[in-house]
């Protein structure tokens, strides 16, 4: 009947999450017409950049059959260490160089995860729980525990750069920062890797069945190693953007956000057992979490209910498809 829709359109997590987002927006607009303005949209977009980049990385790990909880620690480590480094050595360095260093530090820390997971075959949750603690502890002990608001000037310049800004006739102010391009770049690059390269397909294959992947000759070790290095690199990028846009290098920020990010990814249909996850779903999940975190107040739900709401969404968003699958399996058996 509707051939242009994928066969499983109505049963996908993406559809469910998109539906919830639309329902929320309609509800919010009805209770406060000011909600549905370009200001809100640009605010939400800004809030999505860092979480979005982190979520893309977390999704990749889930697809490969692992779980990473250390990426926030990597992000903050890379951001703070590179800021401290350039303040000491070359405060006037251009921002792209600072970004590259942060990404390299992130990749290096990711490689440490990758070494334990891919080469030694240790469980991913255990390894990343350990490194989460180690990276954070190392940062606070050896690099610094002071918030730094006097950032290298080029980072401030970066945060001032906008793709578009203005005021609508109705007086709604909006601005879209350069950082949005970073999210777009990450999405396009990850999409390319996952959909267009054998490396990306191997990540899905490993998530589907490690044993089968080995048997047909996929290099499981290096593929897994790549995943953790890539996630580290994304965390390094997200961290430095977070520092620049927030105009402060705060060694206490970001850590604690990892569960919300994983929640966003899981809401978008990625499964903890591995092998399943899409960029569309991940971005929708991020959008939903960001909307709930920022706009719940508009529909009259107190902000203290945020985490309850997110929890309910996770239970419904992942529970409903799982329950449906179980029913379908019971019927088939």
């Amino acid at each position: 009947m509707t051939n242009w829709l994928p066969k499983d359109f109505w049963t996908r997590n993406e559809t469910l999450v998109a539906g919830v987002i639309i329902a929320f927006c309609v509800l919010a607009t009805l209770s406060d017409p000011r909600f549905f303005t370009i200001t809100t949209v640009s605010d939400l977009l800004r809030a999505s950049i860092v979480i979005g980049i982190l979520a893309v990385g977390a999704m990749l790990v889930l697809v490969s059959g692992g779980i990473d909880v250390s990426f926030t620690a990597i992000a903050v480590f890379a951001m703070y260490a590179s800021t401290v480094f350039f303040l000491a050595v070359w405060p006037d360095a251009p921002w792209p160089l600072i970004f590259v260093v942060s990404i390299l530090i992130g990749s290096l820390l990711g490689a440490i995860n990758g070494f334990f997971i891919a080469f030694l075959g240790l469980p991913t949750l255990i390894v990343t729980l350990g490194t989460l603690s180690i990276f954070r502890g190392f940062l606070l002990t050896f690099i610094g525990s002071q918030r730094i608001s006097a950032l290298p000037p080029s980072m401030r310049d970066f945060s001032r750069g906008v793709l578009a800004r203005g005021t609508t006739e109705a007086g709604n102010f909006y601005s879209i920062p350069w950082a949005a391009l970073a999210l777009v770049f990450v999405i396009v690059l990850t999409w390319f890797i996952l959909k267009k390269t054998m490396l990306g397909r191997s990540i899905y294959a490993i998530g589907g069945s490690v044993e089968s992947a080995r048997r047909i000759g996929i290099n499981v070790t290096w593929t897994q190693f790549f995943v953790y290095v890539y996630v580290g690199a994304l965390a390094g990028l997200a961290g430095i953007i977070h520092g620049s846009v927030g105009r402060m290098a705060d060694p206490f920020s970001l850590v604690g956000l990892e569960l919300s990010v994983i929640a966003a990814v899981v809401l978008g249909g990625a499964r903890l057992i591995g092998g399943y996850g899409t960029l569309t779903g991940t971005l929708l999940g991020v959008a939903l979490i960001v909307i709930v975190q920022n706009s719940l107040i508009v529909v009259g739900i107190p902000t203290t209910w945020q985490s309850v709401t997110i929890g309910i969404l996770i239970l419904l968003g992942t529970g409903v498809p799982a329950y449906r699958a179980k029913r379908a399996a019971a019927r088939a058996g």
Partner: protein
Amino acid sequence: MSSERDTAFVDLRAITKRYAGVTALDSVDFSVQPGEAVCLAGENGSGKSTLIKIISGVEPATEGTIRIAGQERRTLNPRISAAAGVMVIFQDFSLFPNLSVAENIAFATQLSTHERFYKSRATKEIARKALERIGVEIDLDTRVEALPVAQKQLVAICRALASQAQLIIMDEPTTALTEKEVRRLQGIIRMLKEEGVAVIFVSHKLAEVLEVSEKVVVLRNGKKVAEGPATEFDTKSLTYHMTGRDVPEVPPSDIMPGAETLLQVRGLSKAGAFEDIDFDLKTGEVLGITGLLGSGRTSVAKALFGLVSPDAGSISIDGKTIPTGDPQAASEARIGYVPEDRLTEGLFLNQSIVRNVAVGRLDAHVNGGWLNMSALVDEAADWLKRLKVKASDIEAPVQSLSGGNQQRVALARWLSRAPRVLILNGPSVGVDVGSKADIHDIVRDLASTGIGVIVISDDLPELLATCHRILVMRDGRIIDALDGKSVTEEDLAHRLAS
């Protein structure tokens, strides 16, 4: 002889394999010609898996020479072996449930050509060609997890073909297939042979692949004990060579005179599963329930034990009705159920052997809230001994046992609970021939002690060897009730299929 060596696709000479002092293979010669199908038969531990591992390059041989495609292979690894055209289809098929049919078929091919980029159109082309070759249509975009077992197997065959397979090794290819699916597989194998592809079947269940094979090789304790044209073997002679002894299947003795009705099932129905199931079971009787996959036989078995809630009907023991859909009530009424899939439903695989039995008797050894551990373990160990479970250490995990011994452990657990009715679903699935006959002995012995036994199975010789009566099911209904002594295997097969 020498010309045969020259044309052989795989030719192994005097292969010996030792693992830490244990000889798994002892100077075995083995060869396959292009377009030839060979049955490699043997019980668990006979060395057949080791032989396959050597051909596919997973394990190096300790001694002997290996020639594949006319070339002597001094070093062999899975990559070299695969590049030469040796493809193994494992029992679990080694597919990716989350990927599409097309990708599953083409993945290995694309890896072997060192593709860096994934091209959806080329992938589908590879898959389409492979499916065309065996004349099967499966939607290329469907995820493999959504396919039935038989189609998964076809996808695995296509994957091997897409990778230019010259020799396909199939591990237990027919265990999960219905009769119709086995026929289709046989057709495909014949076609492949005509194209010059060689096939090795590794199986316990041989009758079905014997028909399409040219040669049979039997291994026992690491030695080749028989080899010859498939036409010279039948199930009985194979069993003899595999076990090294005749395994006579004695028909069940008569039901004791004066046996009373133990279990009464009346009008048991569940929409979409089974309808109007009526039967009685006497003390000491073995009742077979058979039917093709999907006939409802497993649902009925589960309903008797309360694992499936029927919509209507009653079950009573000694005239007392027991609540349906309640496994605990069934268990209290002393009904036991040994499921078909020991691995996922019946055993705690990584727990010890003795604990797997003891768990059935926890309630009997509780004293004031405390568990009498030593009494519990002693009783369990005693049952393991009575059922002759061969285990060097009863504290070892149950997954270290062979299929036959695992089944005995599952039986021991239920027998320790002194059941009145014991339901055995597929008692010898995945069990080798020797153990199978032993399990049948156990079933007959149980019945002679007055237990009512229900055997759910599609293994016809098994039913004939154990059952006093056989109920045939089709589309959820009982269509025939046959006397186990007078019915023949052919008659039974006919009634099942028609």
